[in-house]
């Protein structure tokens, strides 16, 4: 499975771990709830750690843990759910998170320009064949009116 990261289409090296699944070796992502429940085990293992945030999760709950986290996925339940745009801004602008922020789920390719402005630097696509088009939408505008992250 490929994704967009830092304006390039690359292979995804991360494994998605469901809440009821065993932890795996390598780079894995877990839900915020799983992280809060199994923090010691997750910190003790080798490999990078990613946390999946939903629209209703509070970014503030992760603020003290960000040094241990290399990936944060913002999982769109629906493209209209704009909370994740503010979550991305908070991660970068308030908590100075430097790792990968990846949009996943049901966002629209037409939203990636905004997403990249609020600090999202990676995108998984519902359909891999959409990736080149999604990549091109990162450049829909060459100008903007506001300060944001980018």
């Amino acid at each position, binding site marked *: 499975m490929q994704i967009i990261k830092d304006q390039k289409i690359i292979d995804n090296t991360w494994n998605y771990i469901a809440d009821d699944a065993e932890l795996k070796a390598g780079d894995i992502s877990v839900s915020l709830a799983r992280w809060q429940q199994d923090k010691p085990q997750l910190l003790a293992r080798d490999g990078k750690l990613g946390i999946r945030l939903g629209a209703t999760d509070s970014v503030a709950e992760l603020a003290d843990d960000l040094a241990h986290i290399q990936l944060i996925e913002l999982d769109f339940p629906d493209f209209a759910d704009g909370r994740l745009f503010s979550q991305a801004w908070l991660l970068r602008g308030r908590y100075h998170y430097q790792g990968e922020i990846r949009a996943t789920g049901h966002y629209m390719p037409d939203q990636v320009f905004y997403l990249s*402005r609020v600090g999202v630097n990676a995108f998984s696509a519902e359909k891999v064949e959409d990736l080149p088009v999604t990549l091109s939408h990162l450049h829909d505008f060459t100008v*903007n009116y506001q300060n944001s992250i980018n």
Partner: protein
Amino acid sequence: MYQYNDIDQTLVDERVAQFRRQTEQFLKGEISEDQFRALRLRNGLYVQIHAPMLRVAGPYGLLNSKQLRKLAHIARHYDKNYCHFTTRQNIQFNWPKLDQVPDILEELATVQMHAIQTSGNCMRNTTSDHLAGVCVDEIEDPRPYCEIIRQWTTLHPEFDYLPRKFKIAVSGALHDRAATQFHDIGLHLVKNDADVVGFKVLVGGGLGRTPVIGQVIKPYLEKKHLLSYLEAVLRIYNLFGRRDNKYKARIKILVKETGMDQFSALVEREWQLIRDNNELSDERISAIQAQFVDPAYELDATADLSFAQQQQDHKAFATWVKHNTADHKTPGYRAAFVSLKAPDSPPGDITDTQLDAVADLADRYSFGEIRATHRQNLILADVKQADLYALWQQLDALKLATPNIGTVTDMICCPGLDFCSLANAGSIGIAKEINEALDDMDYIHDIGDLKINMSGCMNGCAHQSVGHIGILGVDKKGVEWYQLTLGGSSENNAAIGERLGPSVAKDQVTLTIVTILNVYVKLRLEDESFLDMVNRVGITPFKEQVYANH
């Protein structure tokens, strides 16, 4: 008036290209109906009963003659020779074809216009006082701040997918002509104890299904903090506004459910964290203010004697001056309303030929600028008194001089069931009927200041809940009925109208209005306005007469 620089123009051009591509993808089936809906709404495009409806932004109501001619051209080539001015100082076309909308937007971009964020759950066109910069009661001209907010809200990456629509209005005068107490955020330019101008910030006002008067969240905000404070409010709203029920998604519900104290504490905490990062510099404010300098008024405009003479000689002209012009800060000048409330035409509508003619009149008499009011009329804001007679004659010939501004026939009216897919009931037909019943101008002038607002459904586009008389169309088992309210106001004395009683049948609406007016004429004290009288006596005397035979 603000002129686009390269950044403004590039942004609008790129937006047109983006929407052209999105429309093509949709027509090829590459974007789903659901997704295209969100994208087209953010470009002002609704799908209505007969055809799409395109809402073009009138930035805080300001237009120039070139733009008006472009609207005329669009009405002629892409629509049915007319367009409609709305209560939010925007312009609507009721008959565009979907595949031509990108072309229309491209035409608009050539005259520095667009339809960005005129609908959808995002920050909408910022509205303001239609007499901004010329009125006699102004603390400071609000238009530069409107432009700063226009830019900040346009394509804001974080706040384009809000729980619900979000509207900002700015007033710079003592008299609130911008209904700021009924906006998601209302801004008043005010002076502090040291005489320094800043903003009083109101939040959580709104009309629609649940009308709420906005509350003061910040009694005084320094100008430099304008954008950081807006950002704080929007971030709290974006994160915590309800998304489970679209009827409970406006910020007014968040404020109510959270409680004003708690809500304002949340905003304050957020703002303290960002206030130093996004300051509006004096240079930036001055640079924008420089685009709103006064036109070259003639210093001897008061020397003209013809104005007084013509009013003496022509009663109809004098009547028009009295009702359709407003005081101007510059001696010898007046602001002249262009009434879009002729008896036989739907409120707010204007034809392509009228648009072209008004553009010419603006060039000749008012420095080429035109304003749209939130009561759906136009204004030529800077007319020399010596020119008013000639202007009046020409407006009269165009059927744009009905001397009814602020009177009972200056109704605000939504498109209703004739065009809108949300509507439960017609409104244009009722407006026409009321106009036909009230055809005596002397009677209308005797009634005086009376604002009737009529919406075809409870979404309340015509602000019926703040009409002195509000009329709301409701559907009862497939039949159109009308609910009346009395005593609403969107001005300084903001109030939500009180329900008169059971709704009335369609064929009874005009009779009911006439009955209400009769009660007023009978019970008013000398010089007492309708609203003052309703506030004094309450609705009971009206109720007794209206429902006397029920």
